Every structure is written in C-alpha cells, then in structure tokens.
C-alpha cells in the first residue's frame, strides 16, 4: 500500500509539474475571430456575376464573369502601439455566383483594441515565386503564372459591350490579370471607431469593393480603347494596380 500511495503522490507531482511547464514566460494570448466581409459593387450596384450588365459613369457597359484577389500579410495596428501580423495567412477573396459578398474569417486574432489595418493585395516577394508553398487552390483558381511572374494578385474577367463593335452580341472580352511585384499594393485603413476584439465574440469589418474604381480612380482607363480592355502586364497594369490599391476598397462599418 505504501507503494500505491507513493505512486499516487508521484502522479500528482507529475501532473503539477506538467501544469508548471505551461506557465513560464509566454502567457497564452486570448484570441478571437475577425470576419472581413467584402461587398462587391459596380458603382452603387451589387454585382451579379455573368448576367448583370452595368453602365459605368462614362456610359461604357460591362458585365463581370469573375473577380478575385489574393489577400496576404494582414496587419492590425493596436491603439496603444504595436501590431499583429497574420504571417501565415494567404487568402483568396472571391466574388461567386449568387452572392454579391464574400466573408473571410481570420482566425486566432489576439483580443485588444485596434486602430488601423493594412494588407497586401497579392503576395510578398518571398513567397511570390514559390508555387508549391501555397494552397493548390490558388493554381486551380487560375491565380498562378507558371514561370517568372509568380501569382496573379488580382483577376477580373468580363465583357465590354458597345454598338460600335461588330463582334457577336456587340461585345468583347474585358480582362485584367495583374501580378508582378512592382504592382504590389498595400492599402491602409484607419478605423473611425476603434475595433474592439473581445474573446466572447468575433469582430467584423465590412468593406465595399467598387470594381468601377479599377478603371477610374485616379487613373482613367477608358474601355473604349481596346488596349485598356485587356491588361495582363505592362504600363497599364501599373495604372490599374495603383487604382485598385487606392479607392477600390473602403470600410463601411466596423462591428
């Protein structure tokens, strides 16, 4: 019986010492989820992929078949200084059939008060040329150029309509595939209200994503010009990326 007691005592000692091991230095941080909700629009209208037709401010008519971009290196800055970076997070933000919005949940965000946010539209240079490092999904979504350009940071595909076109349906393709590290955009958002993340419930940030801005703010690329309707690289890609890094995405509310 003595042995048994000894065993029990030993066991409890092990249990206690296990507990002790968890304690030192690094206190596990309380975290919660942060939901980023993107509403895709053209001007003021919610987009409907494929079938919806939209008249832009300059009276160009377009439809959108696909729109998606890579979001990475999300950084939240704390009100009292310091920041949290989602180092492992490489996400695809994507408009899909039957929904004009996309919800992205960032997991395990430390609780706290945050005053601003930034993220990459696209990859960082360390990862841009490593196809095997990423979810194969990015390739299967057509977001990867196989050779020396790396990933497509942003992809828009649709149609441009004009009675001046002699093609079937008086329409032609509208394409922007933007990649290349020189076109990396890192939009920054200051919160008008502090984002307070508490452990009990997920926080959320609502964004408007206005696709028209891709062609209008601040660089105007008229779709009446054929070389503005198909942009995969070159000087126009830099104008486009400047536009989508500028005012395409705006915060509408924080909860």
């Amino acid at each position, binding site marked *: 019986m003595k042995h048994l007691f000894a065993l029990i005592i030993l066991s409890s000692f092990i249990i206690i010492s296990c507990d002790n091991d968890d304690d030192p230095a690094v206190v596990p941080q309380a975290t919660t989820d942060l939901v980023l909700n993107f509403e895709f629009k053209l001007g003021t209208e919610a987009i409907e992929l494929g079938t919806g037709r939209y008249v832009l401010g300059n009276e160009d008519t377009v439809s959108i078949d696909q729109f998606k971009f890579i979001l990475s290196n999300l950084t939240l800055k704390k009100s009292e200084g310091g920041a949290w970076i989602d180092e492992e997070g490489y996400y695809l933000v994507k408009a899909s059939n039957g929904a004009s919005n996309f919800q992205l949940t960032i997991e395990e965000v430390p609780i706290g008060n945050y005053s601003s946010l930034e993220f990459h539209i696209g990859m960082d240079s360390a990862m841009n040329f490593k196809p095997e490092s990423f979810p*194969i999904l990015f390739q*299967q979504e057509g977001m990867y150029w196989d*050779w020396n350009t790396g990933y497509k940071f942003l992809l828009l595909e649709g149609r441009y309509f004009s009675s001046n076109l002699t*093609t079937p349906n008086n329409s032609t*393709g509208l394409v922007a595939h933007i990649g290349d*590290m020189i076109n990396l955009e890192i939009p920054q958002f200051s919160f008008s209200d502090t984002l307070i993340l508490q452990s009990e419930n997920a926080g959320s940030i609502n964004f408007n994503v206005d696709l028209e801005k891709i062609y209008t703010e601040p660089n105007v690329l008229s779709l009446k010009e*054929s070389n503005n309707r198909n942009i995969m690289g070159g000087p126009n890609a830099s104008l486009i990326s400047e536009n989508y890094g500028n005012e395409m995405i705006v915060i509408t509310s924080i909860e």
Partner: protein
Amino acid sequence: MKNKWIYISIIFIGSAVFSCNNDDDSTNPPINNPAPEGKNWVYEPTEVELEIPAYFPEITDNKIIEEKFQLGRHLFYENRLSRNNTISCGSCHHQNKAFTDGRQFSLGLNGEPTPRNAMSVVNMLWEDLFFWDARAKTLEEQALMPIQDHIEMDLTLAEAVDRLYKLELYDSLFFHAYGDTLITPERIALAITEFEKGIISKDSKYDKFKRGEASFTAEEKLGSELFTTHPDYYWDPDNQLNIYRRGGNCGDCHVSVNFNKLIGTQGIKNNGLESDASRKDEGYFNVSNNPEDKGKFKTPSLRNIELTAPYMHDGRFNTLEEVLDHYNEHVQVSTTLSTLMEVSNDPNGNIIYSPDGKTIQLGLTESEKSAIIAFLKTLTDNELVNDPRFTNPFLEE
C-alpha cells in the same frame, strides 16, 4: 505486503488489457464474414498507400484497398457488362493509348459510334467533373453511366448485378473486396472507381523534370514558357522594363496537375472550334440549360496527350500540329468563346482578327508551335502505359 502489491498490479494490468480489448471492439466493427460453404476464403482487406508526388495537390484519401482495386480491374475489362458480351470499359480505354481508343468516336456494342471522343482515364483522383459535357459530378456516378447507355453497353443496373451473380469468379472477388458476396450497383461503381483511382501518371519526363531527375531541352523549355504565357507585356525585373512576351495562351485553362484543372465549372470553356451558326454540339449547355454555356466543354487533361489522338470532343484533329494550328490561326469568334482566348494581344495591345473578323490569331511561328508540341510530348508516361497492374486480367487467366 509485497504479494499484495503484485496482486494489485496484476488486477490493474488485467483490467487495462481488458479495456484495451473493449476499445478495439468499439472502434473496429467485428469481422464476422464467414466464407461461403466449401470455400476457405478469408476477408483480409489490404490497404495500399498510393504513391503520389509531393507536387501533386494533396488529397485526403490516398489509400486504396488492393482487393477492391482487383475487383474493379476485372469489372473494367468485363465484356459481359455489355448486352451482347462484346465490350467493356477497356474497349474504349486502351492502356497503350493512356486509356483512350484512337478513334474519332468510340464505338458501342453494335458498332454504332457514340457522340463523342473517348476521354483518358488517368489521375482521376484530381478530377471533379466527368465526360466532355461534365454531366457526371463524381467518378462513382460516371462509372455506371456507360454500362446503362444504349449505344455503349446497354445493360440496366439490375441486369448487370444479375449477370455478375451468375459468374462464379465474382463470388470470390466481391467477398475479398467487401467481406461478403453481395453485389450491388453501388459496389460495382466503387470497385471500378477504386481501380481508376490507382491509375496515376507521375513518371513522364515532365514529372522527372519537376523532381529534378531530368532536364528539358532548349526547345522543351521554350515550349513550356510559351505554353503558360498569355501574349502581352510583362515587367522584366532584370532589365527594369516592360517586355512583350509571345505566348501560346494554353496555361489560362490548362493548369495544375493534369493541365486541366480550373476549379469546378470554371474549367468548362468554349475553345473556338465553331461559330454560333456552325456549331452542332452544344456541350455543357445540354446539362446546364444556360445559354451562356453553349458550345462549352470540359477542359481535358493534357497528360499523355501524345498518345490520346485524335483530339477535341469530336476527335476532329488527328495530330497535335492540327491542334496548334487551330489555336494559333483558326479560333472562331462566337458569343460564348473563352474570354481569355479572345483577348490575346499583339504588341500594340490589339486582338489579331482575320480580315473577315471571324477568327482570332495568336501569331506564333512554326518553330514556336513545334516547341509547344515538344513540351506537350514531355507529358508522355511510358511507365504508365506498360504498368502490369492496369492490364486486362482476362488475358492472363
């Protein structure tokens, strides 16, 4: 005192062992499958882990049951699954042609042509839509369709089950695959699927290049770059300027492990074979009923493309040269043409139309077209077409 301690220990160990046994019983259903009378069969399913290269997309279930694979192999080559006992899956899917049949249109049990060209049955684990018109969403669903098709094999599933019950061979094969001799359509589909899952092409020159075991010739390398390039300007970081890259525009649709895998229906495209007026086969439109899908077909795998002639859903092109000529010179403008094929820029940023405006061109030279074909031929996997595990078992027995 000492004895008592030993006694306690024994009880403790005994109960530990006992509870372990209990655990096993609860997680693994008891094996209670007596062999049919007079047979000394034992149901011992053998799990085989598939050899999958690291650069293939990860899949959750990477194991097959060997006995189920062997049952599926027999069913795949089983002529008695056709009404007049003349054809099997293997009749239109020959191993030496990467599981295609070399015909423009496959022939059914009465020699009548089917409406479309036979597709290759390779690396099916990485496919999510089946048939040219994408009418099957799973491999299991696909497997039973040709058996029931009136032109192809023309058996009802009830008749198929009946026939297999009458063949003694299948008592043993089903018992070893499933633990009893019950035959159902679902079990037939799952076994054929298990066989097809095992057919993995991973030893082409391209694969060896990916693994660092082989190098491309200069022509193959040029071809691989042309293959993936959409003709346009790109930033050249070495020289700090935008340069125009010529391209074959293949990689917009032919991506990932089988060079066909844009996710889901994104991979269903109109590749400009016909104008709106000339088109006869509406493809995916017949499945979706959406007018935007007229003339669209599943982007096929390019693995072993050298062996799978003739090409396209209707087998209209006999050679890869004809295929390259189509994409370079004869793409027909239509309402549903793939947008990415339509917008192929020349160095001035304009689409190259033919003078009549009815076709779009890429402007590749003959040697650039040859380079793309040289790259495509690196996708040929001779180990696959000679692998004894995929041969017709009835020719051995």
